[in-house]
């Protein structure tokens, strides 16, 4: 799929992933793989936004508003990041919105 074709899709956490927000950073546990990952600041923000209720386009819009970046740059980075998480079975994509998730933040 080309990058521009992704942007109307809705990313959401894979059902096998558990996560927790700690001081603004996302800690992920991949139950299938038995792996643990910590996302950096912007990655954690994208993770928070990828709750199934927003399209990738929506997420890019938020990132452009919140960070010192251009729409092109943010679009490329967000799509690459989400593509990577989809490949690693951390996010799933759907064509419509999913019920909002509720995991713990601290």
């Amino acid at each position: 799929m080309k990058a521009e074709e992704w942007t109307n899709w809705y990313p959401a956490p894979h059902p096998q992933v558990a996560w927790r927000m700690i001081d603004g950073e996302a800690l992920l546990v991949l139950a299938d793989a038995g792996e643990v990952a910590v996302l950096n600041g912007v990655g954690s923000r994208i993770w928070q936004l990828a709750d199934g209720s927003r399209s990738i386009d929506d997420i890019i819009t938020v990132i452009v508003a919140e960070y010192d970046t251009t729409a092109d740059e943010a679009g490329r980075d967000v799509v690459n990041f989400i593509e990577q998480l989809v490949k690693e079975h951390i996010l799933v994509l759907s064509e419509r919105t999913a019920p909002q998730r509720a995991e713990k933040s601290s």
Partner: protein
Amino acid sequence: MIRSFVGRSEIQIELGDIPVSLVVEENSFAQRIRSHYADFLAHRRTAVITVDVRVVEGAQFLPVTPGAWQIRTAVRGRRLRFESYFESGWVDFEEGHGELIMGVRGTVENFLRVLYAHLVLERGGLLVHAAGVVRNGLAYVFLGPSGSGKTTVARLSSDAIVLSDDMVMVRTTKNGVRAYGVPFRGDFPEAPRSNVAAEVAGLFCLRKGDDHSLQPLPKVHALAELIACVPFVMTAPAMSRRAMAIGERIVHHLPVNALTFRRDAGFWQFIAPGDGRSGVDSHRRETHGTRR
């Protein structure tokens, strides 16, 4: 408690205040269990799980192949399944009982590791891959995967009581975090299996190096390193979430540092506060009445 059945006995083992009963045939196998877990035998308490252990000649469940030790576990609802080379069993946490079938070459050790990982998780604690030692009344927990130096750190702590060089049970309390010795060992089998518990002074994530140094870890990385050292129970998202919640309470209470160390005992100068409190809390004390 040792209670006679028809040719069978109940051997109660207690780790971290959690009693489990093994019902076994009264023979040399039962004697081996009593001897191996001597410091962890419990009396007069109601077991949270009773496991019927049967030794079956020729039983083998997985082929023995070179590589990492194979332990397969699965949880469905409140039922845990366990399988390794010469052991296969299940536990129903709702009903409080289970069964373990073993070949002659089998042991109960790995089954107990898996079972206790689940039991302590339900009770607000974690069984973690770590070396643990008690020094001046305080426990020091050294986290790390295989090859990170857990056994080395335990061996270099000659003036300390070794909780384990492989696994330690940690549970939160009202005032902090407590570490409990377990009878499970890694590459330091000769270390006494001491049934000892103590308040935890700190968690240390092991890094091998050319010198000694301490580096405080941000909370999210501290929790990530702790959770990465929790075996057996992270196979389902619900249990992972529970482990993370418990882990977050633990790292909230404790300093967590990356400890880079070389192979000498000098690392203690960096981590010991030097004002250890009163002695060790032995679980063989009067509370369970087994002091001999």
